[in-house]
């Protein structure tokens, strides 16, 4: 088994970090940097374990970009074309949560919302929590469109972690049994 996380390639880290620190990223450069990160991880971290017959667990996949970049105003079709090089996952699970729950959880964990996570770059509100609500609502709307388009399996993430994990394991084992 192999785990890969969004935005973790060493190649792109420097540019992303610099861009985020200076709040210098536009929706387009944000989108392209994340696609570069994904391409780098696809080649070095995703394809080799797949070839070796391992299971790759991806914490976020192309759908994150489809939802987030489009919420920032990047063209819907363009970003799908951009990721045309990605490997289709065998199972894509979407943990759906209402905006209030996600905001509460984030605020409980951290002192401050991150600039881009809260969509502060869009300039919709100078109040971080308000900006987060506006931006992430758009992101969630996009996810809802992705569910039928890409056949994502939805797990209700407002429930307890135990329940979610139970459903998740069942989904995965069914998938694995069917494929073996």
């Amino acid at each position, binding site marked *: 088994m192999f785990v890969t996380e969004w935005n973790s390639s060493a190649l792109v880290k420097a540019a992303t970090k610099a861009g985020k620190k200076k709040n210098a990223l536009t929706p*387009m450069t944000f989108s392209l940097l994340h696609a570069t990160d994904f391409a780098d991880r696809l080649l070095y971290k995703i394809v080799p374990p797949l070839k070796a017959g391992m299971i790759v667990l991806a914490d976020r996949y192309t759908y994150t970009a489809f939802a987030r970049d489009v919420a920032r105003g990047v063209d819907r079709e363009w970003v799908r074309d951009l990721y045309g090089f990605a490997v289709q996952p065998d199972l894509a699970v979407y943990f759906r949560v209402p905006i209030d729950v996600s905001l509460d959880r984030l605020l409980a964990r951290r002192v401050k919302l991150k600039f881009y996570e809260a969509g502060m770059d869009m300039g919709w509100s100078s109040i971080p929590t308000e900006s987060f609500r506006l931006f992430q609502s758009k992101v969630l709307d996009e996810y809802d469109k992705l569910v039928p388009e890409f056949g994502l399996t939805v797990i209700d993430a407002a429930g307890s972690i135990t329940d979610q994990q139970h459903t998740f394991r069942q989904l995965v084992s069914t998938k694995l049994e069917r494929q073996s």
Partner: protein
Amino acid sequence: MTNDADIQGAHGGVTPGHYYGHGLPYLSIDRYPGKIIALEGTDGVGRSTQIRLLREWLEVQGYGVVETGWTRSPLMQPTIELAKSSNTLNKLTFVLLYACDFADRLEKEIIPALKAGFIVLADRYIYTAIARAGVRGVDSQWIRRLYGFAIAPHLVFYLRIDADALARRVLEAGGMEYWESGMDMKAGDDIYDSFRSYQRQLLKEYAAMADEFGFRVLEGRKSVNTIQEELRRQVGEFLEGSGSPRLLTPEA
């Protein structure tokens, strides 16, 4: 306005000054008064010299000029340098880093300059990216859609040269380097052979784009002055008919 009409259709139906494809939906560029003039051509063909001379001339004519060049975005330059030196680039990340560099310059340099009525002189444009990707086997439709956020220039000049003349010129100017010799493609250890074979393939890619994107071809083997005269003639003709704003009255 004759030139504008000529160019229309030559860019795959896209009017100069408009996005090639989906563009940046959040950034409208309608009726911006500036103009983009791109100079394309392979490594060492003499683009930068021509750009410098053209810029001087345009400024004397009273035009405001902004220059933009490949991989010069402050956001991406350090990463691209690092990636080139560390040997971890593959054809996809190569293409995407370039696209990111271009997007950064488009939004931060090119579009603001167009809005302010400047002439943007582009030392290489998206065609260099398309040619390099093509040689490396990247899907040609995919890369064209990727650059759908680019703006079709008002004029694209292509400095054409053959691989043998180019090899001599690059050697005279200081020697062949790893990337412009296509050594990443692992065709062999001999840099001279690799350079010629790689540049030949690149030139083929550029040639294939000439009609598609309406290149105005200039012979790169001619003297710097001859090329510059031809450039000035064509640019002058275009600008006269385009109603481009001048910052100053031209010197007599």
